[in-house]
């Protein structure tokens, strides 16, 4: 027998309790990892190859306020600007759905393809998108989800804008950070809306990354003191401002995480206290026959840490295996595209498990280490 073997035998002396303890840690850590992954997914600003040179121009008052279409000519003349497209969120209900489940944007197809260079699609489909004013392209995830194919007529009922649209699917794209969206021609949108001369935002591509600061400054100054002042920012900054809108959700998810960890701590501490209390006599005997305080302290901590470690392995490993091998997009009806259990998240969950194993056993371990042999032996007879 070894000391490690002795600790393992003690940890598993009540197999049902050990199993329940491991499972409670495993399930809680699975939940914790899921929450952390979801939090990351909803708050992480996307970064893709084209984002570095992209600028989003929106109304300075708010994202919900439209911009005049006439600004385009001004934007195109600004030095350092390579391409400009209107980018208007349509937000229509598809088929019989209760609410829009994927985003539709009205764009200038030709300029859009110059700006979102990472979108990959077949040449003939791109041609069709450029030529047909009622054409639309659909992200591969959405096309797969709804079983859409080229030539399909897609009908949308406007929820934000008072117009319904009938679009013709001419192609699919993939390779962007979010292959769920649908893009169609802004001219068709303008026509359907009665040529209001409004756009949601402008997406601008700078000639080079080095030009970005100057271009941003020029755009902001170009519309200063006009009836539609703008706020130009990099795509990353724009995404970060979108992320900040999740503020309350973040607090909510973090609160749930804290509750999970705290509950787990209570469960583990209670289990360890029970396990130690019922072995009070044995531990006193161990001390009597020569085991040191620090050794008894170490046994209890190692036992607790071991149970937490096995639970962590199951919980974190299970979460990793689950989110790696299942389609989260299908599971969440497209709300989430991918759940990535990053090393950082696994590290956080592992640290929580380690801390849990130590903290939950700390009180009984200290009490037992401090107990005098006589006090322990007095409980014997």
């Amino acid at each position: 027998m070894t000391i490690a073997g002795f600790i393992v035998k003690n940890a598993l002396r009540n197999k049902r309790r050990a199993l329940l303890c491991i499972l409670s840690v495993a399930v809680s850590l699975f939940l914790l990892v899921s929450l952390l992954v979801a939090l990351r997914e909803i708050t992480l600003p996307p970064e893709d190859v084209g984002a570095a040179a992209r600028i989003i121009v929106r109304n300075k008052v708010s994202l919900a306020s439209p911009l005049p279409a006439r600004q385009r000519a001004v934007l195109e003349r600004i030095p350092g600007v390579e391409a400009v497209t209107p980018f208007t969120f349509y937000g229509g209900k598809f088929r019989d759905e209760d609410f829009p489940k994927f985003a539709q944007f009205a764009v200038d197809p030709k300029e859009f393809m110059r700006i979102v260079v990472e979108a990959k699609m077949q040449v003939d489909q791109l041609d069709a998108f450029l030529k047909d004013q009622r054409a639309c392209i659909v992200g591969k995830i959405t096309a797969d989800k709804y079983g859409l194919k080229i030539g399909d007529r897609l009908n949308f009922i406007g929820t934000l804008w008072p117009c319904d649209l009938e679009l013709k699917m001419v192609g699919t794209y993939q390779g962007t950070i979010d292959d769920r969206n649908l893009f169609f021609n802004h001219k068709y949108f303008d026509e359907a809306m009665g040529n209001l001369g409004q756009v949601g935002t402008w997406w601008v591509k700078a000639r080079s990354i080095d030009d970005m600061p100057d271009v941003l400054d020029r755009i902001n100054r170009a519309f200063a003191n006009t009836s539609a002042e703008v706020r130009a920012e990099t795509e990353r900054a724009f995404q970060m401002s979108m992320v900040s809108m999740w503020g309350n959700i973040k607090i909510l998810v973090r609160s749930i995480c804290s509750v999970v960890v705290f509950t787990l701590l209570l469960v583990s501490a209670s289990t360890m206290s029970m396990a130690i209390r019922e072995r009070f006599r044995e531990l006193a005997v161990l001390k009597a026959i020569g085991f040191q305080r620090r050794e008894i302290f170490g046994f209890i901590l190692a036992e607790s840490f071991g149970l937490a470690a096995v639970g962590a392995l199951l919980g974190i490993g299970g979460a990793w295996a689950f989110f790696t091998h299942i389609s989260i997009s299908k599971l969440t009806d497209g709300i989430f595209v991918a759940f990535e259990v990053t090393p950082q998240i696994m590290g956080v969950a592992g640290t929580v498990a380690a801390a849990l194993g130590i903290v939950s056993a700390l009180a009984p371990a200290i009490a037992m280490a401090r107990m005098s042999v006589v006090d322990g032996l007095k409980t014997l007879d």
Partner: protein
Amino acid sequence: MPVENIVSIRQLTKLYRQGEIDVTALNGISLDIPRGEFLALMGPSGSGKSTLLHIIAGVDRPTEGECRVQGQDVAQLSESQLADWRNQNVGFVFQSFNLIPVLTAFENVELPLLLTRLNRRERRTQALTALDLVGLADRAHHTPRQLSGGQEQRVAIARALVTDPTLIVADEPTGNLDSNSAAEVLGILQALSRTAAKTVIMVTHDPKAAAFASRVIHLEKGELLPTEERRP
């Protein structure tokens, strides 16, 4: 040839504080216990016999006086030194056996050896020898639950013996045993004192158990009564 005293106690006093009151558990006891003696400590509950046993075994400290075991003033050792000292010099036998239920008889006996520098093979040899001495080598891989009370206590004696201590302390070792098992256990303790020169100190209420001892001393209200000596 002068008698070698393994335990030498002088003016030993132990006070316990219960709330605001000091309770005298031992009151100025002086006692010598020679090597190889089987000493029975008798007395009514609260007479201080277990306290005396605990101080001799190094699990409690006196309030006043001196307790030397093999020349070592036990009270002068630190907690950590005491733990090592107990491992090397004292074997414990308890009334309720106190074997670790998840370990086999062999592993229970091997347990104190985990604190020594012996390697796995040496530990195995020593543990099996101790089990053989108490007649339980064939039960080495049985767990305490698979053993009778008498067998459990014999395993506990093997555990007490395995580090080859000078002193074996037994607190009511037959308290939970039937008469046959008790006789077996007492016979082993007696043999250890007579043939292996182990000094055995046993606390008991049972005169039949005390009859196995070479000397019986009685305590009452923390003081020694006149000694009754049986045989050398």
